């Protein structure tokens, strides 16, 4: 004999309203495993949105510690974390449980470049929530090599962008790079000697733009998990919050891209 229906049954399921969206395959979402590379502003928002969307298995990678200036845009960080020098990835893994005690979050304190490449193929989707070109290209190439969709997000002040990479069909991050990107990489990694300091101004970053970009990243993930890849951004979505403008721009695959030619 089945259990009798309770009047409040619709409010007893945390994902009941998500199920009503219709096109979202909630079984696939709940069963998915996502890799989030970067536990800064975007990483915080992406993890928050993934958990609230129903994703229950997340791996998060970051090498940095929490500082006070993170607190204007990182929803999981607190003053006590900054004062204690907490590792960003570990703090998110700990505090994200407040959103859903059943979620499994593995935190890895370290650089994405040190992550064993096999870890990429253990996941259904990889999120790029990074703050530099070199780490993005690394995450892009390893995701591509293992055939795992890679969703890259970036912000600068009140502008942002999201690129969805679906191997082997779509252009990758490297296809979009030009000399201005590589010059940034060279500037950071050039050998300047121990007695020379390279001053790099901090980038403007605030929560409203971060929230928008991260939300779009997670939504693209929901599309992929739900078999709606045809509805994904092709290729890059640009956002300007000050001008109230957003646009999807297409890009051709670079026939000489080293990522594709492996």
């Amino acid at each position, binding site marked *: 004999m089945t259990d009798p229906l309770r009047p409040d049954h619709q409010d007893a399921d945390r994902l009941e309203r998500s199920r009503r969206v219709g096109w979202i395959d909630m079984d696939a979402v709940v069963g998915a495993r996502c890799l989030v590379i970067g536990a800064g502003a975007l990483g915080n928002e992406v993890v928050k949105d993934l958990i609230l969307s129903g994703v229950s298995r997340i791996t998060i990678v970051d090498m940095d510690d929490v500082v006070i200036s993170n607190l204007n845009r990182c929803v999981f960080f607190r003053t006590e974390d900054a004062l204690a020098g907490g590792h960003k990835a570990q703090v998110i893994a700990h505090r994200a449980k407040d959103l859903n005690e059943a979620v499994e979050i593995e935190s890895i304190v370290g650089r994405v470049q040190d992550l064993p490449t096999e870890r990429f193929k253990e996941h259904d989707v990889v999120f790029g929530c990074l703050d530099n070109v070199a780490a993005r290209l690394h995450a892009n190439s390893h995701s591509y090599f293992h055939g795992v969709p890679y969703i890259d997000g*970036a912000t600068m002040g009140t502008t942002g962008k999201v690129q969805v990479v679906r191997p082997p069909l779509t252009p990758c991050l490297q*296809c979009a790079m030009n000399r201005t990107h590589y010059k940034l990489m060279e500037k950071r990694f050039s050998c300047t000697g121990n007695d020379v300091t390279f001053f790099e101004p901090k980038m403007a970053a605030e929560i409203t733009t971060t929230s928008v970009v991260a939300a779009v990243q997670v939504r693209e993930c929901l599309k992929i998990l739900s078999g709606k890849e045809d509805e994904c951004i092709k290729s890059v979505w640009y956002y300007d919050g000050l001008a109230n403008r957003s646009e999807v721009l297409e890009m051709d695959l670079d026939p000489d891209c080293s990522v594709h030619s492996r």
Partner: protein
Amino acid sequence: MSVRVRVRNAETGSTVDMELEEENTVQEIIEGAAGYWEKDAGAYVIRKGKKLLRGQQTVLEASITHSDDLELIPDPEGG
């Protein structure tokens, strides 16, 4: 054969006309326009309509023609 295009600065709205040869690359357009406007160090891309142009493409390969409107867009890097 040279072509004259108009490049728009997405951040300020200002424009500049550029004279290009078929063998000029998109990268050279980016660097020329960014230099003209004394842009901050950073990454930039060029769009033509709904298309992002790849840096290595030449004017010919990117089908850039006379009187085309291009836009120089800063490429966000933060996160």
